[in-house]
């Protein structure tokens, strides 16, 4: 794609001399230098040191730093809290991703079918996405408090309400609903873009063939927006398995007990409360590598799907 536009640039290659070529190459590198500097220092460097950190015992408080091979990974195997946290994160990420996809897809389908008020609906529904987790966390911990707004609403229907954030069974679903409220506007816009890209003629053809609305949805629309669906499912899952702010702010760092204790909270606590940098680094690396592969597979699949 790049070469095409560049070759179009030089319609007459004969007056394109070697010195000009070299000069252009030098200019290219010079333009890249500032970015490359920051990339190497703040991205490439940390990625490399992430791999080193995972194999050392690094206690910031005691000042120990020594190579211990795979010991950190053995510790992970025996760390019950790690597995509890991983389970919670997986549960949360699955719930939130599924919820977001369903709400966002319905909203996008509805938005596509209307004209009057389209902008108003779209603008308002994306608005929570631009808010910070602090605002969301604080507002929803008040909303979901025992005497909060949601229970006051249930009271109108004669229901006693729930203690959403203090009930071990309700806390993760509550955090998940909060997160869906916060973020469904984003997948909604992605789905909307994908829906607009489906040629109208395909719907027309399906209708002429006598397909019903549900048939069109399942057999025309969904297969055609599969790349967008796949993209959203994978990126949402990766984002939500790293959930941190919601339990940090809303449930006092994972409560009640460890019911909303997530993997990133566990990493954060080990690194920045106990200063077990090596151990926390090993956990972060394990999680990171799995997600990296996950993302890579997704992009391979995306490449395949987009070539229909």
């Amino acid at each position, binding site marked *: 794609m790049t070469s095409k536009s560049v070759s179009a640039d030089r319609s007459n290659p004969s007056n394109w001399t070697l010195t000009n070529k070299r000069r252009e190459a030098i200019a290219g590198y010079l333009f890249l230098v500032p970015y490359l500097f920051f990339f190497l220092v703040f991205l490439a460097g940390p990625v490399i040191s992430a791999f080193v950190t995972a194999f050392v015992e690094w206690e910031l408080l005691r000042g120990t730093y020594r190579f211990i091979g795979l010991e950190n990974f053995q510790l992970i195997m025996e760390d019950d809290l790690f597995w509890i946290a991983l389970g919670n994160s997986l549960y949360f990420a699955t719930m939130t991703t599924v919820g977001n996809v369903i709400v966002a897809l319905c909203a996008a389908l509805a938005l596509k079918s209307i004209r009057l008020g389209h902008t108003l609906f779209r603008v308002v529904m994306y608005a929570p996405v631009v808010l910070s987790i602090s605002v969301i966390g604080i507002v929803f911990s008040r909303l979901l408090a025992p005497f909060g707004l949601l229970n006051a609403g249930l009271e109108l229907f004669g229901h006693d309400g729930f203690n959403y954030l203090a009930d071990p069974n309700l806390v993760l679903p509550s955090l998940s609903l909060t997160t869906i409220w916060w973020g469904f506007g984003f997948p909604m816009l992605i789905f909307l873009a994908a829906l607009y890209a489906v040629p109208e003629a395909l719907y027309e053809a399906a209708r002429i063939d006598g397909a019903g609305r549900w048939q069109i949805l399942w057999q025309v629309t969904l297969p055609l927006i599969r790349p967008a669906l796949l993209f959203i499912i994978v990126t949402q899952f990766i984002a939500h398995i790293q959930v941190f702010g919601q339990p940090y702010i809303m449930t006092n760092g994972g409560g009640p007990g460890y019911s909303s204790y997530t993997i990133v909270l566990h990493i954060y606590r080990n690194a920045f409360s106990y200063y077990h940098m090596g151990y926390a680094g090993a956990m*972060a690396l394990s999680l990171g590598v799995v997600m990296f592969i996950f993302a890579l597979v997704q992009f391979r699949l995306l490449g395949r799907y987009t070539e229909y």
Partner: protein
Amino acid sequence: MQSDARNILKKRLSKFGSYAFLTILLLIVLFPTVWIVGQSFMHEERILKWPIEIIPSEPTLDNYIEIFTTKLSRQELSLFRWLFNSLYVTSFSTVGVLIVTSMAGYAFARLRFPGKQLLFFGLGASFLVPGVMLLIPSFMLMRALGWIDTHHALIWPPLAGFFGVFFMRQFFLAIPSELAEAAVIDGASAFGIYWRVFLPLSRPAVATLGIFTFLFIWNDFTWPLVVLNSDEMRTLPVGLVVFYGEYWTYQGIVMAGAVVSSAPVLVVYIIFQRQITRAVMATGFGGR
């Protein structure tokens, strides 16, 4: 004819269903918002009373006066300081990102040099590195640089982000080459072409990238939480949580704090919603 009438009826019904669904969703989004704003204008005693009031019958500015004048009991700080820190860090970082990534994006879009494709995909792979993996090594880097509890730790690392490079490259690729050729004939240097031809033409793209970067840095929570530890250095999102811990029994004050810290981003969003929406739909970025 009969089936035509049925089709029209069906279409009307489905449209009605769409509106009903969207209206419910709209109310679910708006209701907490109205409630927060209402509470922030309500006397503390009224908030505690039953039944709950959504729109205050006797609105007051007390909560807002309180958060901007009364100092936090512990550190003698107000939200003002955090607002200023956020503004300072975010503006500097955003300008830096725009300069550095637009230059790199230009090189990838319009200049020919050996190893370009390889470099582009190599840098692009950083897209897939999850944030959690970078948290600890980045913290150790800040420690080695002596940047813990300084604003340097928030300003410089975003300049390594690849999104800006990718975004600007896409835009520069779409600019017709005749314009650049005219400048070449006029004897402009590579930098001159970038500075006087491409950058002015890409003002909308720079603005969009600027808005995205601004929102992203402004809202960041985990990183500032990790690298800043004194209250006077904090940015608004982390400050607000500290504030919440301090004032958490005073709902009106907490809600006023939430309103004050959301107002700037919401204003930016409403002014630029068209650009934001278009960029999200075109690039697939901007979510969480």
